């Protein structure tokens, strides 16, 4: 598979995403500068974490106007697989590729720690290597992960099984205590109705290798390979 990792000014998990696809999973990776207007024929697109444009104004607010975003939108519209992680998720929200918006964490602090998320929908291109209800331990690292959307949209997302990942306890209980940032309905990751655009706050690329002590995140990437019928 040929994966495109978009590099915005201020992206800082771009190398980490490349490392996972290239070194851990043996796929080929293109780094795509935000000023490009074509995606060079890649099979899937990653919007990596970081602080695009310093997260000034609002997270993702400026990045969504980068020239490359036109191509990303077109790619998504054609059914191409797009995953936005952390800042990437925030950019997808600002770009309108996913519904809702991010508010400051309830604690107002940046939070970096392992959290647990429950796979609420294992029938997506990004989770099919997981069991339904499986609990994954994946770190978060953000200051604005407090997901918000209006009640109507939330109800629609619930009805369509668009809420893919929810913060939970290690045992899989979705409780307020397990919610690290105040996110609505403990939302950690959502997908579009068509099922080809995923946004998630936790960083699966940070836990995809034994040497880092945790491989839960690898399942997200393996799912994508499976969906694309790539053998690993």
């Amino acid at each position, binding site marked *: 598979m040929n994966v495109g990792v978009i590099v915005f000014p201020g992206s800082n998990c771009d190398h980490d995403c490349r490392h996972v696809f290239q070194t851990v999973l043996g796929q080929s990776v293109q780094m795509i500068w935000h000023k490009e207007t074509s995606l060079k024929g890649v099979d899937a697109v990653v919007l990596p974490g970081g602080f695009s444009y310093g997260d000034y*104004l*609002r997270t993702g*607010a*400026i990045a969504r*106007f980068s020239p490359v975003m036109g191509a990303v939108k077109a790619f998504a519209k054609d059914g191409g697989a797009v995953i936005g992680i952390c800042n990437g998720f925030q950019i997808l929200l*600002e770009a309108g590729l996913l519904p*809702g*918006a991010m*508010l*400051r*964490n*309830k*604690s*107002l602090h940046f939070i970096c720690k392992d959290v647990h998320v429950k796979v609420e929908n294992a029938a997506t291109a990004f989770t099919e290597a997981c069991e339904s209800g499986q609990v994954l331990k994946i770190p978060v690292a953000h200051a604005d992960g*407090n997901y*918000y*959307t*209006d009640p109507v949209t939330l109800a629609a997302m619930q009805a369509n099984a668009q809420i893919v990942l929810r913060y939970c306890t290690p045992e899989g209980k979705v409780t307020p205590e397990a919610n690290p940032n*105040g996110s609505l309905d403990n939302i950690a990751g959502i997908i579009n109705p068509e099922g080809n655009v995923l946004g998630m706050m936790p960083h699966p690329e940070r836990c995809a290798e034994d040497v880092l002590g945790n491989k839960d995140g690898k399942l997200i990437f393996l799912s994508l390979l499976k969906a694309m019928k790539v053998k690993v």
Partner: protein
Amino acid sequence: MKAKIHVTLKQGILDPQGKAIEHALDSLGFKNAANVRVGKYMEVDVQETDKAKADAQVKQMCEKLLANTIIEEYRYELV
């Protein structure tokens, strides 16, 4: 012309920053401070002498970039 723009969270959206400040004011002894809301204030020089044109432009800036209308509302004045 100078645009003075206020971007605030919509009514009904929880404002964690406002809450924190309210709490802090309270502990500092300002017991009669309540309903703190925090927003952004921006000043932009718009090099345009026609007021109507400038107005249209600032409105566009707000809609497109300066405010996220899912969670925020904006107002501005031109001086």
